[in-house]
């Protein structure tokens, strides 16, 4: 196997980070619903913070961490099947959350 180019590794890192961010978003939503339930939206007149935006920011942070792992894997593994698996897992998790725990 020839060494992957830095640009290729960076692109793979970005892709894995983005997919991991989707997975992290779904996981954060589940944790929120389980341990930090918000008040009934019909009764909540105003909230200072947007939980959606904070969840998005935190999931992007988690995705950033995963991107480093993706960069390392891209340099070590000749194949990239793990990326497909990661994307599939992330999409499944997000759809499940949207269906069951919006």
């Amino acid at each position, binding site marked *: 196997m020839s060494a992957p180019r830095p640009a290729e590794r960076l692109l793979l890192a970005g892709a894995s980070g983005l997919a991991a961010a989707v997975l992290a978003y779904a996981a954060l939503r589940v944790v929120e619903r389980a341990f930090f339930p918000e008040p009934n939206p019909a009764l909540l007149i105003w909230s200072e*913070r947007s939980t959606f935006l*904070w969840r998005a*920011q*935190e999931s992007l*942070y988690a995705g*950033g*961490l995963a991107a*480093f792992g993706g960069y*390392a894997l891209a340099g070590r593994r000749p194949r990239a099947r793990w990326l497909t698996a990661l994307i599939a897992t992330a999409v499944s998790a997000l759809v499940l959350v949207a269906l069951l725990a919006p």
Partner: protein
Amino acid sequence: MRRAASALALGAILLSAAAPSHAEPGPEARVTAQQSFDRAEQAFQAERFAEALAAYREAVAADPSARFVLTARARAADLAAHAEGDFAPLARLSIVRRDPTKLRDRAVIEALARDVAAFPPGRVRGEAELVIADAWWRLGEPRRAVGPLEAVVADEAGDRLTRSLALGELARLQRELGDLDAALAAVERFPDLAPAARNEVRKLVRRGRLRTTAIALLAALGVVGLTSVVRATPRVGGLGEIPRALLPPLAVAFSLYLGGAAAVLVRLRGDGDPRPFVWLGLGVLAVFAVARAWRFGWGVGGPSARAARGVICAAGVLAAAFLAVERTDASYLESLGL
């Protein structure tokens, strides 16, 4: 039979309705009640407690509808609850409690402590011990407050609320004196007396044990790291090559991101302390360096060796994370029950 019972019940209801209502007190009774109340207040201020109790009761009896009746009833009930020894202990305590200068006088506190030993069982004894404990604490001799507080807690004849308060104060005092084991022993001896204090102390003990374990683990990793660096130096090509070998750019970038980005997020959020995340990033970098040194110094090893190394270093990361939070802002641990 049923009809007879119903008729009797109806008759009783009618009779009670027809009975004359309690007579309103006349003007003389109101005046008497007011005078009794005034006399009671004066006696209470002058610490003639027996006289005050009697006068409060007279005032209530003379005019039960007077505006001061609630106050009089409350004071009478309180005095009756502190009546042991014909009010002598209460009078003795009041001499000290009402005078701030006496509360700052060591000789007065010591004299009170000697007299308290002879007090009969009851509320006054417990309250007096609390006053003594509080006085010693304010006089800068907190260790002398331990005895009185323990006495209140152990006094099974004392008021439960007073004992609970004393146990909470005793736990707090022991913590301030740095004796967490003594605080734990105190709250565990009477587990139902102050559940909140017990949970708090248990949490602190748990945190202390975790802190000790984390420090020990990181110290052990540090020793492993140092010995590994010594062994690895010739293998990587000299001491000058050690930084590059142990801290590859990716690891440094990851640690900076881990701590830095999280700190930025916390700052943006506005209500958190970013320091734990900065220390976490540095801690992770250090553990990573130890892991690399270990690998270079002792070889890659078989699967089980690699797994063991991985588990130990992962534990090191957790230890670093725990210490980073516990040393900077322990409130983050509250949500984890630590």
